[in-house]
């Protein structure tokens, strides 16, 4: 009988914090921008420059630590991690090894019906590296330091996960917690959340862990899942062939769906950590911790419960809406203005999700104002516009955040309330469609629908179909 194997997985998750400036200098962290525009002597490692810590980084990191049930290291320090690479301008990265900001936490995940705790070994603050772009033309690499010095936290889990599903659930859980804290937008595609996978396999029932490898360059949830499957199989094949798994760092190529070892004589992986002499220790007092705790938002589980209590919306809707902090914020803000939670949920569940999918965006990308959605709902409820016009206007709100009232006014999309105008049109429709009129009078109810349709068309949609229907019946009576 073939042997049964168990996969043992631990994750190192890097999260870019949502600060306005870099961790050690006053350069902007904004995405995009021409190469090296968001740089200064500090984040490009100029001789003589010195780092000064951004306080907000500590606040965010401590908040994440607290929200993941970690112990906060009340006297923590930065260390230098020394290695040469062009994206690392000083050839050392300022990170934390000996006294990371948070340790010994956990998050609870659910896979199917099963609940499980994934322990967090430690969490530390560090600076991100610059970007390297390969220049095909002359076979060189180009370095852009715009991302150099963007603050990161690295969350290192214990090897507590046993499947790709658990890994996904763990990442989802972290993403929700961090997004709810507002500490990061956690977009895998843009790289503001990245994960390295440490994986080993062992025979089911074995008490010792197997030799693990570290997999890097995983840019999406799908890539992570594929890499886990691929690496699991590679290690099992090695073991079955009687060969040893080598402890190494491997780079995943998602196009080829395979990985290769990142070994080089020049990468000794001996980082010579020592305390960063240019930065002083951080002392996080009980009072400071209390302040950070007091600022903690309502997390998803609590929010979901509250929605179920307070709003008459389906549980499924509440789950989808609370799965994104942004979506939940819009839901609450819009509902607070218009007082119609069901309508708001509808717009989010149907049209918003449809447009996000069409545009290839994530809920975090939503940029319209709740006021505008609330106004749109009011316009529809008041019968000022009909539902098909409303959809058209919503698309404008979604894409350009237009004020629906102004937009409807400017484009003349209001339902025509003038009975005289409607009567004129109806007279013409009746005159032009004698057969349909005859059918209706002959008892065919369906024929009335065709006449209403003709009228709406002639009115360019700006009529209330109910009103048209009523008027028609009167005129044909």
């Amino acid at each position, binding site marked *: 009988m073939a042997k049964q194997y168990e996969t043992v997985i631990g994750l190192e998750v890097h999260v870019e914090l949502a600060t306005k400036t870099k961790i050690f200098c006053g350069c902007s962290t904004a995405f995009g921008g021409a190469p090296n525009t968001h740089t200064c002597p500090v984040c490009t490692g100029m*001789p*003589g420059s010195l780092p000064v810590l951004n306080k907000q980084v500590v606040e965010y990191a401590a908040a994440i630590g607290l929200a993941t049930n970690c112990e906060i290291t009340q006297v923590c320090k930065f260390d230098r991690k*020394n290695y040469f690479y*062009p994206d690392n*301008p000083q*050839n050392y990265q300022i990170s934390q090894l000996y006294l990371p900001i948070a340790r010994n936490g956990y998050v609870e995940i659910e896979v199917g019906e099963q609940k499980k705790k994934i322990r967090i070994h430690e969490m530390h603050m560090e600076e991100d590296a610059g970007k390297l772009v390969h220049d095909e033309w002359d076979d060189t690499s180009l370095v852009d330091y715009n991302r150099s010095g963007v603050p990161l936290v690295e969350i290192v889990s214990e090897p507590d996960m046993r499947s790709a599903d658990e890994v996904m659930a763990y990442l989802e859980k972290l993403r929700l917690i961090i997004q709810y804290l507002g500490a990061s937008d956690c977009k895998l595609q843009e790289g503001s959340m990245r994960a390295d996978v440490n994986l080993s396999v062992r025979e089911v029932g074995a008490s010792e862990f197997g030799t693990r490898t570290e997999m890097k360059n995983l840019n999406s949830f799908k890539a992570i899942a594929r890499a886990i499957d691929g690496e699991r199989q590679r290690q099992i094949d090695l073991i079955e062939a009687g060969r040893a798994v080598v402890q190494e760092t491997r780079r995943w190529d998602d196009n080829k769906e395979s990985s290769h070892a990142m070994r080089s004589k020049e990468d000794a992986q001996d980082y*010579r950590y020592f305390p960063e*002499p240019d*930065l002083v220790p951080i002392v996080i007092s009980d009072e400071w911790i209390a302040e950070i705790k007091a600022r903690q938002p309502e997390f998803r589980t609590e929010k979901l419960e509250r929605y179920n209590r307070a709003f008459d919306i389906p549980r499924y809707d509440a789950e989808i809406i609370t799965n994104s902090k942004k979506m939940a914020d819009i839901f609450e803000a819009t509902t607070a203005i218009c007082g119609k939670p069901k309508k708001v949920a509808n717009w989010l569940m149907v049209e918003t999700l449809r447009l996000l999918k069409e545009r290839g965006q994530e809920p975090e990308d939503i940029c319209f104002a709740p006021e505008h959605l609330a106004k749109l709902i009011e316009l529809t409820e008041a019968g000022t516009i009909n539902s098909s016009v409303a959809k058209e206007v919503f698309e404008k709100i979604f894409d350009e955040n237009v004020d629906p009232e102004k937009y409807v006014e400017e484009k003349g999309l209001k339902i025509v309330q003038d009975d005289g105008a409607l009567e004129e049109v109806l007279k013409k429709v009746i005159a032009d469609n004698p057969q349909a009129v005859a059918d209706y009078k002959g008892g065919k109810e369906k024929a009335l629908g065709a006449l209403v349709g003709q009228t709406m068309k002639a009115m360019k949609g700006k009529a209330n179909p109910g009103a048209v229907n009523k008027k028609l019946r009167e005129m044909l009576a």
Partner: protein
Amino acid sequence: MSIRSLTAVQLGKKIQAGEVTVREAVEASLAQIDSVESEVHSYVTICREEALKRADQVQKMIDAGELTGPLAGVPVAIKDNMCTEGVLTTCSSKILGNFVPTFTAEAVKCLEEAGAVILGKTNMDEFAMGSTTETSYYGVTKNPWNTAHVPGGSSGGSCAAVAAEECFCALGSDTGGSIRQPSAFCGVVGMKPTYGTVSRYGLIAYGSSLDQIGPVAKDVTDCAAILETIAAHDEKDSTSIGRDSYDFTSALVEDVKGMKIGIPRDYFGEGLDPEVKEAILKAVKVLEEKGAVVEEFDLSLVEYAIPAYYVIASAEASSNLSRFDGVKYGYRTAEYEGLHNMYKKSRSEGFGPEVKRRIMLGSFVLSSGYYDAYYLKALRTKALIKKAFDRAFEKYDMIIGPAAPTTAPELGKSLSDPMKMYLSDVYTVSVNLAGLPGISIPVGRDSKGLPIGMQMIGDCYQEKKLLQAAYTYEQTGSYVRPELAEAAEKGGR
């Protein structure tokens, strides 16, 4: 008295009084540079045109009453490891041979804002690693008192320039004695302030936890005036310390009555040149006669300061100097195959032997398996050394000893045996490890006519006590600096 022989503060007064113009002062310095530089070689870069232009600007501001400080219009020199916007900054290394910073070091900025005129950048041991200024890629600096001897180091260029009157005062940096030792060798006053007193922003780092910028001056009054100008809390340097007061010139008072001076027996034992010992003890006697209470004591741990220092300084240096890689600035080798070959060739060709030696040692002591045994052991030793000083300062206002075991050695005699060179730092490095202030003042000359310096060490933030005692000694006239020309004559230049 010629202009160039004035002290900085004397010159400043004359400029304020309209007796000397800034241009005249700068021209006097440049003329002296022209006359002695070929022999002394204090400078790596001389900013002739810029200095003259700046002189006229400063003069206008003085005339308009906008600059009234003691250093307004005073020509100064800057050690070449401090960044100066638009002016070559080499650290006396080939690897920064073409490096032009885009910003100015905070301490230099303070001087500029006070109206000082920068004459140029002074020679030093490459990346401040050395005790003789012989490891410079740009040639050795010679001791103005006897050009067959070294000026000391690593701030040898700054100290030689002040001694040779090629400027009125200068900035140096001190990681293990790099201001105090060359000041002693060149017969000038040099001070390393308490760690954190002068901003390190813009100082190209050697050992970040030890580095401190300080004044090199003709006398104690100048030293206090410069310190007062450059000391300030700087938000750009996280290790900068906000102090209660910065009025160092108020310490220029002739009074040491009741001041308690500790003389560490361990500083006067084996290895100390008898002439140096005699001169220092004589100077201590002068202070005693002025009312100071002098007592011998055992400081302890003196022999462990050097090994601890070389572990910490080399480890930090190995990391600080890793940024010089041919990617962003400085030297890149002409031919290379691939990234790592480019790194290795650029660095191996760009750094001199002493720098490579310390980078190798520093990388080794931090490497896997050795960190605890070497680096942590050194940090624990540092803690013990700090404690030994704390104990001493419970009893004494200051500690007095030599700045170096001998007077300036002959050129070419030190580098052949690096270990021996390291050992000569015995009286200075512990002050850096403990973050304390120290001053070196001239107290005599040996039989060869070479200056002897006395080091006074204070508790942290006690610069004013040091300045007061040093000033009191100076005012007694026990040692008068001879005219340079006369001394050089005697030294057989």
